[in-house]
């Protein structure tokens, strides 16, 4: 083989006091899919941002197709065919779907933007990638999944030669992942190379030709690709054995109902009756639009409840707002970390404390107990191993996974009776994931109950006591998790769907 | 430095300063620039240094500046042109306590006692303009009838208010004169737009403007353009001539008077107001004497007013300066500030 398409040699990056990368090396050939693994804050995003030209490296070389990229800015690199798909916030909500696909490179006729071509080609590409959206509609009105797919379509349509996908599959359903992988493979067949970042070891093994692991800023290529297993990769990522957390055998007492929900209705939720047992982890399953997520949000008061009652410990709770829900002992972690989670300008300490302002941290006259706040933040930082220099680091200097741990800390510190987790491990490395899960399980042993909503069924089956399947805004069935397999789970889910449409 | 302790006796000033300060209300209009020059020139003539602070059309700022002057700088004398007549009373009281001779010029100071006030009679200016307008109508239409447009100024200005008041007082005496009163000063573009609209409005009822009065020359600049665009800009004496009467004495407008386009300009003694005030301060309080409330005063400098009369006003001794009506015949008088 001659020159690789991309060669990264000895690249390092220093952010102020943080050394994010020290001497990374990487070779990628045309048509190769290379996966990057690593713990949160290992430097994956940093490396791909350097390759794409979002920011410069502190030292080292990046060569693409014989061009020294050091001298080229992000625009020149795009002309060479390097395209980055960052995970979030990458669309133009007030522009049409079609324009979003072509933004930055609009087709023109006689020097003017050629709208008819744009709309036609966009319609074709949307159809080809299975996105059901009106090219003339605003992106603002798309579901977040469709908006994410749009991001990917955008970089694929323009003859890219190296596409970088930074955690593209977080919160995608299995089917959506399969659709995505199908067009990644199509493009690979045409010679496009990929860098693929993910924390899901299964899909990495499934998709990639080669794999590297980043740990502590250093890069370890996985030598024996053919014989690599999930366990092996997990050890490489974590730097040791990873113990998978599992639910204990004994089940919570069915007669000890902590939360009783009757006739709950809200946007997308039709008449839900459900009892949640004390100390139980209740898995929630449903396709987008099935009402699963909407149910969780309604229960937290984030979406308006139109009718129905919720009793917690036999007490009728008001669900007028998230604040009220927190006061009643119900806490929620949103799937949308950036919009509904982090306070980017505030430090870690304040991000952890913010939901306790009206609770544990309150003192007379509206003052806050700042000393207590610091102690608690310190405690959670240690327990959940949040990677930061001090608790006074600004939130936006943390890597995505560590930001998620801060959010978990925030809600656990309100000492909720019911914790609602909506994709709590999105973008979290395998070790951190187990840390978060075991923390949640530990708390259920002291009487807290949890609703657990995730598309990662493997994870769900490890933690859930029972599973609730949602369809068309209603509870379709409730099943005890007696060593169910993923196949059984998907079968129940799909048969519910069929029963409903029959 | 100056300790702020007032000298006993009251003769002269506490500080022995050789500076006379003029606190002007704004520096955007040429009138005020000339007025400041009147003070500075008189101060120089009297052997002092003339200095100026500008309040940039803001009462609070002027207060701040006057406080600084009274408490910290303590000049030999202070000439004040209040931006707001009511809000300088307190600080002028402090000046009195600090034994700083004070003259108020142009705008009076309410609720304060100062050594001398030298003021323009703005109502009288308006009246003179009104009488001229009536005279012009009579010449043109044979009787006291026709359409008169008064472009009044922003109401925060006392001078504009009084000039309009005097003007409209006179016009309203004649039932056959139609008075159109509209906001169109001091900005030139405001005047152009306002007059354009009035002309269009009148046109739809078959009427025409006979006389336009503005309270200030910057607005008149806009009036000229409006008349030009509407094809109504003709020399005095031509049949379609629209008479224009203005106030102040800006050079460009005086030229139009000389050239026979603008009928009349009511000119105030801009150099005189500051100059005479400074001379009176020097002649009386700075010399340890009280300013009289009757009799006359003959200033050394050359001003439109060659002799003035002391009267007793609300704020103490007062001199009212007479406005001068300027037409083509006397428009090149060098004592008019706009000709300097």
């Amino acid at each position, binding site marked *: 083989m001659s020159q690789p398409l991309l060669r990264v040699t000895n690249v390092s990056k220093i952010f102020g006091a943080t050394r994010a990368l020290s001497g990374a090396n990487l070779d990628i050939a045309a048509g190769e899919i290379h996966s990057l693994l690593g713990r949160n804050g290992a430097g994956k995003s940093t490396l791909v941002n350097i390759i794409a030209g979002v920011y410069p490296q502190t030292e080292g070389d990046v060569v693409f197709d014989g061009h020294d990229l050091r001298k080229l800015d992000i625009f020149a690199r795009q002309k060479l065919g390097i395209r980055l798909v960052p995970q979030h916030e990458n669309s133009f909500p007030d522009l049409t779907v079609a324009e979003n696909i072509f933004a930055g490179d609009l087709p023109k006729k006689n020097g003017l933007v050629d*709208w008819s071509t744009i709309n036609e080609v966009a319609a074709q590409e949307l159809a080809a990638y299975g996105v059901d959206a009106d090219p003339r509609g605003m992106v603002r009105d798309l579901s977040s999944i469709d908006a994410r797919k749009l991001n990917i379509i955008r970089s694929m349509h323009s003859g890219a030669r190296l596409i970088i996908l930074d955690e593209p599959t977080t919160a995608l359903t299995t089917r959506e992942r399969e659709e995505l992988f199908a067009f990644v493979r199509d493009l690979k067949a045409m010679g496009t190379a990929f860098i693929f970042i993910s924390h899901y070891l299964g899909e990495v093994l499934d998709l990639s030709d080669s794999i590297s692991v980043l740990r502590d800023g250093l890069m370890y290529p996985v030598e024996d690709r053919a014989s690599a297993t999930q366990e092996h990769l997990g050890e490489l990522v974590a730097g040791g054995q990873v113990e998978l957390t599992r639910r204990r055998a004994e089940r919570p007492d069915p007669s000890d109902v902590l939360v009783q929900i009757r006739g709950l209705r809200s946007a997308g939720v039709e008449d839900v009756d459900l009892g949640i047992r004390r100390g139980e982890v209740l898995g929630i399953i449903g396709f987008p639009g099935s009402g699963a997520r909407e149910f969780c949000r309604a229960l937290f008061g984030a979406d308006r409840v139109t009718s129905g009652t919720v009793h917690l410990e036999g007490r009728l709770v008001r669900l007028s707002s998230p604040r009220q829900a927190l006061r009643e002992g119900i806490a929620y972690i949103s799937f949308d970390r950036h919009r509904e989670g982090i306070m980017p300008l505030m430090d870690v300490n304040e991000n952890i404390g913010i939901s306790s302002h009206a609770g544990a941290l309150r003192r007379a006259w509206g003052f806050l107990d700042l000393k207590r706040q610091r102690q608690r933040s310190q405690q959670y930082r240690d327990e959940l191993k949040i990677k930061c220099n001090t608790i006074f680091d600004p939130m936006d200097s943390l890597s995505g996974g560590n930001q998620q741990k801060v959010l978990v800390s925030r809600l656990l510190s309100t000492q909720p009776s019911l914790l609602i987790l909506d994709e709590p491990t999105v973008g979290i490395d395998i070790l951190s994931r187990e840390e978060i899960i075991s923390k949640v399980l530990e708390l259920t042993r002291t009487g807290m109950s949890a609703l657990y909503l995730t598309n990662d069924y493997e994870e769900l089956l490890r933690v859930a006591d029972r599973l609730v399947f949602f369809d068309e805004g209603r509870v379709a069935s409730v099943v005890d998790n007696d060593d169910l397999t993923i196949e059984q789970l998907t079968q129940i889910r799909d048969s519910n769907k069929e029963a409903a449409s029959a | 430095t100056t300790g702020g302790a007032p000298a006993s006796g009251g003769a002269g000033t506490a500080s022995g300063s050789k500076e006379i300060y003029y606190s002007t209300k704004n520096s955007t209009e040429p009138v005020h620039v000339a007025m400041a020059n009147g003070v500075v020139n008189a101060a120089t003539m009297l052997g002092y240094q003339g200095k100026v602070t500008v309040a940039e059309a803001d009462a609070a700022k002027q207060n701040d500046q006057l406080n600084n002057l009274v408490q910290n700088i303590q000049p030999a004398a202070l000439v004040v042109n209040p931006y707001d007549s009511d809000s300088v009373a307190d600080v002028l009281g402090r000046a009195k306590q600090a034994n700083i001779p004070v003259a108020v010029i142009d705008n009076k100071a309410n609720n304060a006692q100062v050594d001398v006030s030298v003021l323009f009679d703005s109502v009288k200016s308006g009246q003179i303009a009104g009488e001229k307008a009536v005279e012009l109508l009579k010449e043109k239409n044979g009787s006291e009838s026709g359409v008169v447009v008064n472009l009044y100024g922003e109401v925060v200005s006392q001078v504009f208010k009084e000039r309009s008041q005097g003007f409209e007082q006179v016009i309203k005496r004649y039932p056959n004169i139609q008075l159109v009163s509209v906001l169109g000063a001091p900005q*030139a573009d405001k005047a152009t737009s306002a007059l354009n609209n*009035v*002309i269009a409005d009148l046109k739809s009822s078959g009427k025409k403007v006979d006389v336009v009065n503005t309270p200030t020359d910057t607005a008149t600049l806009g009036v000229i353009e409006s008349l030009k665009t509407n094809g109504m800009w003709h020399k005095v004496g031509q049949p379609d001539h629209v008479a224009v009467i203005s106030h102040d004495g800006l050079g460009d407008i005086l030229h139009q008077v000389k050239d026979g386009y603008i009928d009349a300009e009511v000119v105030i003694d801009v150099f005189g107001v500051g100059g005479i005030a400074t001379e009176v301060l020097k002649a009386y309080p700075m010399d340890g004497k009280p300013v009289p409330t009757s009799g006359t005063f003959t200033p050394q400098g050359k001003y439109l007013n060659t002799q003035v009369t002391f009267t007793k006003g609300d704020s103490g001794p007062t001199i009212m300066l007479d406005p001068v009506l300027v037409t083509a015949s006397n428009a090149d008088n060098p004592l008019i500030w706009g000709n300097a």
Partner: protein
Amino acid sequence: MTAVSSGRKILDFSMNNAVWILLILAIGIMGLFRPSFFSVGILSNILVQATVLGLLAIAISMVILLGDINLSTVGTAGFSALTGVIAMKAGLPVPLAILVIVIMGSLIGLVNGLIVTKLRANALITTLAMNMVLQGALLAITGGSSLSNLPDSFKFVSQGRIAGFPALPLVLIVVFFLFHIIWTRTEFGRDLFAVGGNPRAAYIAGIKVDRVKIGAYVISGLLSGLAGWLLAGYMGAVTSSFGTTYEMQVIAAAVIGGVSLTGGRGSILGVLAGTLLLTVIQVGLAILGIQQTLITLAGGLMIFAAVLIDALRNLYGARRSS
């Protein structure tokens, strides 16, 4: 059934076209009180008086679309007009003097743009300071007096007539049409919306964000210079308080016209409607002969009403789509 849905349609329509409906209402009410409001003379006056405001409103909108703001449009207009007039009085031929004005406006825009992009300074405060500097310089150079006696050729567009119709509204129409094309059909225009909508995404999409921003500032300055020329011609002078009547109205026209202050959203037709609405209010208040001390209040209340109606429109839009 049909009654309900047609009622809904009418509501939809009125909400989407609130500013235009307000405009028609305003004209109607003015005409009711004073029928002469419908005369050709006054209606063409409105267009004439809307021209300077309209150019300045597009100028500020170019920058508001970025999510920034340009508070120096009026100062730019005044200072640029001044330089051109001084150059003309010093002997420069009129067409070149006009060119000087427009170039000076663009240069000021360039300086704003460079400061905002390269030094990452906040636009609001930068342009606020720039406006103070420009108005201060205007004052310092004129020494408080006015430059008048401008030649007719300089004033031709501002005061001239073409086939009996004033030339100024033609400028309004041409410029609005041109910018409609620029905003909707050119790469620069679309990049402007993309950058305003999501600068980070625009950067990743390969749009030269800084260059687009600087371009927007330069065009904003250029239009301000153009407005300065026209206003100088209209009032026949460059005065030291040049254009201050427009200061508040410029933002109001753009925002009432639906240009979102968070960037990335707006249409030229909206800006036109906002401009005309404000001008009609101005002219109307003047012609109705409202008592002098009440004029500011009446004007303020009208703008306030327009803001509230605009807010209701947006609220209604948000309700409908969710």
